């Protein structure tokens, strides 16, 4: 290599060093940066702050969105009833009642998968986490059929086996609501906890054993205590999710007269002679207050406690040899998979092939439901809408999340804290509440922006709902990339844009893909905001399912449910094959 270097004349060199105004503006110049920040703040403001403020506006406004009315506190007065106190107790109580058993089972499953020599752990992990990806509306309907007190398969089998008159289970009860929530919560919590078990430095436990502690007291005094921050935060997360939950109380609570806040909001808009928007909006705002308190509590609990155990280093954790007991743990995992996936999917299969749900005799076998669904233009439209929204929504959400995360963790730009908080706001907004907020937001838009009633209304709501997770996924991914990788590229001659594209995007895309699939699943299972924002022509699959179910058409529901299941399995398979199991890096 020769180092002889023909340098251009001094004048040339200095112009080259300065570059042109355009490059300067976008490679860290103040003007380009300010414009970029303004655009980001505007987009995030429209997605989060605007519906939030419209919620406040609507709760004080006496008439439905878009109509002239006056401002009063009637909405807030109306929610202060003894009945609503029961609704609040129901909401909090049900969420608590599902979170505690879910967390215990999730810890047990995570321990089995991460720390024991149970056979086929790799496969079991995929199977255990599968229910997380199944839209809750599907399992809700399947369990509605399985556990129906009169014609449910479980009760029919029970009567046939024992000759009893009374049903064994009735899903239309508190127990049913909690049972259904658990099926989603357990895999959700498992995903959070399993990595904490896995990433723990084994020497921390080994040194406890060396100090004379038994295996069990090591587990209690070291392992669990070290995991406390992870456990607390997953507990809070699951608890908040429980309060936001809509499908379970709608399917199993409403028929039994059990009302929670989300179903109360839904009922007051959809099932009253005249929809009471002010009441619903005031209630939404009230639940936001509750969520805010919970989030504050979560912060104060976790303040100063970092996730020291999760170092990100690839430790080889201590694996406990269970001996013959490993088949018991294996059986437990299989049982979990059987109950949460095989049973409901089996019910959907069964339901789809018989003429009437509940009458399972040979002469009732038919394919007519498949024919009916495939001939149904509404189904195809909903399918198309769901796919379009899923692809567009997931992409847009992830791009937004990637940019917000970049600005908030990788730059020192003014206003980065603001956009970080704005992107995080929907985290404490249940889908139902955001739906109500957007109802008002779209109605209040000036004339030339007819978003309400179109597919774009749903798209915007999905983006808003998905942004916190998207931002979090990308934040985690950026944190793992050292600054040196970017700076090195700059020093060796690449501009800001070139560095972004060749280094950061190239390195962060696996996380982007993981987040994309997560967001896509999120959109596919979304019901609570969709049910408020859809209109004829912009239905999505979950809405069509709910409508068919309400009309008592359980058989066609089964067919559509199976289609969705196929999609879920297909996407999950692609995800596992293409990007490996990086979901747990969430």
């Amino acid at each position, binding site marked *: *290599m*020769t*180092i002889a*270097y023909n*340098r251009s004349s*001094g004048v040339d*060199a*200095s112009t*080259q*060093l*300065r*570059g042109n105004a355009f490059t300067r503006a976008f*490679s*860290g110049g103040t003007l380009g940066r300010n414009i970029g920040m303004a655009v980001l703040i505007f987009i995030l403001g429209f997605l989060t702050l605007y519906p939030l403020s419209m919620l406040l506006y609507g709760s004080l406004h006496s008439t439905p969105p878009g109509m002239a009315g006056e401002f009063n506190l009637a909405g807030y007065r109306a929610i202060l009833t003894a009945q609503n106190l029961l609704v609040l107790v129901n909401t909090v109580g049900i969420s608590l009642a599902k979170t505690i058993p879910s967390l215990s089972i999730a810890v047990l499953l995570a321990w089995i998968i991460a720390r024991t020599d149970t056979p086929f752990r790799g496969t079991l992990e995929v199977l255990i986490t599968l229910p997380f990806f199944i839209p809750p509306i599907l399992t809700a309907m399947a369990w509605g059929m399985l556990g129906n007190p009169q014609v449910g398969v479980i009760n029919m089998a029970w009567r046939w086996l024992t000759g009893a008159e009374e049903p064994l289970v009735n899903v239309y009860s508190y127990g049913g609501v909690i049972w259904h929530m658990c099926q989603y919560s357990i895999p959700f919590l498992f995903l959070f906890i399993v990595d904490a078990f896995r990433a723990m430095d084994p020497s921390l436990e080994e040194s406890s054993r060396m100090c004379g502690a038994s295996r069990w007291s090591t587990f209690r005094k070291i392992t669990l205590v070290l995991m406390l921050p992870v456990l607390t935060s997953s507990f809070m997360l699951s608890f908040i999710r429980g309060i936001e939950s809509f499908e379970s109380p709608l399917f199993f609570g409403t028929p039994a007269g059990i009302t929670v806040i989300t179903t109360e909001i839904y009922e007051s808009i959809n099932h009253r002679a005249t929809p009471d928007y002010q009441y619903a909006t005031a209630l939404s705002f009230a639940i936001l207050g509750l969520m805010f308190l919970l989030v504050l509590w979560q912060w104060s609990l976790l303040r100063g406690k970092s996730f020291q155990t999760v170092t990100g280093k690839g430790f080889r954790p201590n694996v406990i040899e269970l001996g013959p007991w490993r088949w018991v743990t294996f059986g437990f995992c299989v049982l979990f998979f059987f109950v949460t996936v095989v049973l409901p999917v089996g019910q959907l299969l069964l339901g789809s092939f018989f003429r009437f749900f509940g009458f399972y005799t040979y002469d009732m076998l038919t394919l007519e439901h498949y024919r009916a669904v495939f001939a149904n233009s509404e189904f195809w439209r909903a399918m198309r809408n769901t796919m379009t929204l899923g692809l567009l929504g997931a992409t847009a959400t992830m791009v937004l999340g990637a940019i917000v995360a970049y600005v908030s963790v990788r730059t020192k730009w003014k206003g980065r804290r603001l956009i970080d908080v704005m992107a995080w706001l929907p985290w404490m907004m249940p889908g139902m509440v955001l739906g109500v907020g957007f109802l008002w937001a779209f109605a209040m838009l000036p004339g030339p922006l007819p978003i309400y009633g179109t597919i774009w209304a749903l798209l915007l709501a999905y983006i808003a709902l998905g942004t916190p997770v998207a931002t979090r996924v990308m934040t985690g991914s950026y944190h793992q990339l*050292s600054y*040196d*990788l970017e*700076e*090195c*590229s*700059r*020093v*060796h*001659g*690449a*501009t800001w844009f*070139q560095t972004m594209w*060749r*280094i950061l995007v*190239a*390195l962060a895309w696996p996380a982007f893909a993981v987040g994309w699939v997560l967001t896509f699943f999120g959109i596919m299972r979304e019901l609570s905001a969709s049910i408020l924002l859809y209109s004829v022509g912009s239905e999505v699959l979950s809405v069509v399912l709910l409508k068919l179910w309400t009309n008592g058409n359980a058989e066609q529901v089964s067919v559509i449910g199976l289609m969705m299941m196929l999609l879920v399995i297909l996407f999950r398979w692609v995800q596992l094959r293409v990007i490996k199991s990086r979901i747990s890096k969430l």
Partner: protein
Amino acid sequence: MASVTLENVSRVYGAVTAVDGVDLKIRSGEFVTLLGPSGCGKTTTLRMVAGLEKNTGGRISIGDNVVSDADSNYFVPSERRRLGMVFQSYAIWPHMTVFDNVAYPLRIRRRPAAEIRERVMGALRLVEMEQYAERPSPALSGGQQQRVAIARALVFEPEVLLLDEPLSNLDARLRTQMGDEFRQLQQRLKITALYVTHDQAEAMALSDRVVVMHGGKILQVGAPEEIYQRPESRQVAAFFGTPNLLAAKVKDCRPNGGAVFKLSVEGQGWSGECHAATEMTKGADVTVMVRPENLQVCEAAKANGGLSWSGEVVQAIFRGSHRSIVVKTPAQKLNVEASSLADVGVGRTVTIAAPPEAAWAVCSE
């Protein structure tokens, strides 16, 4: 290759002054090391030359071009400064092969493919890594990553090579080997190199000149021997190894040829002759520095113009190449590096002596 000039360069973060008025001129082809404890501002200085930090005061030039001038708010971003840099973490991009990593600076500059191939292979040959060209970069060991990082920094023939503690992540044996190899390469190619380290041995072995920094300021600039043997201040003296620093008073001072003065000093229970860089007044307080390896153990007092102390051995540790002894003298405890053959056990009374040229006096602060 170009020179680098720093004129009164400062960097202030809020109330903290990380770098405080640094003046430094690095000649073309020279290897200069910034040396100091962590937090002394050496890395910040390097990053300001790289354009990764903006200097809040002063002016930086590379060759004849000013690249950053705080007064006129002129700042050339990193990518247009034509530098090569080796990071402490090596910053080898994990999604690229070795070849792609090294080719990056050339591809960014849109060189033709044939030229890229030739120059990348040339650079890889320089660091003896050409057979690894197609390896995915995460599959490299620490030493190999370091070689790739150097090849990448050299491939487009930069004006200046910047190195931020490039050897600190290697084990001791490899560190010495890589350091020596790099020094040879630098001298062969006449690269202007600015090197940051906190390792004094590394700094002395590699550099033409060493810049000792502390608290954001330069304490002393000089050739390694000069810094080591003839420090300008007690702080610089204390920074290298574990020297014996003895308080003393000047009894007499006379020129000794060149810029060196010969002093007669007297401490607590000892006296003798030593050297100093500046003229000292009689009766002035000085600190006399004697390095442990220059002290010799003798059986009886043989004061021959130099310095000597007597005392009891309170600690003796065998280290293979030598024996570390601590001798308790009336003045203070002294560290001595004795021959590993010397038979000195704890409790023995010994006399230790140093020739005048091994004792160096600086002003006491």
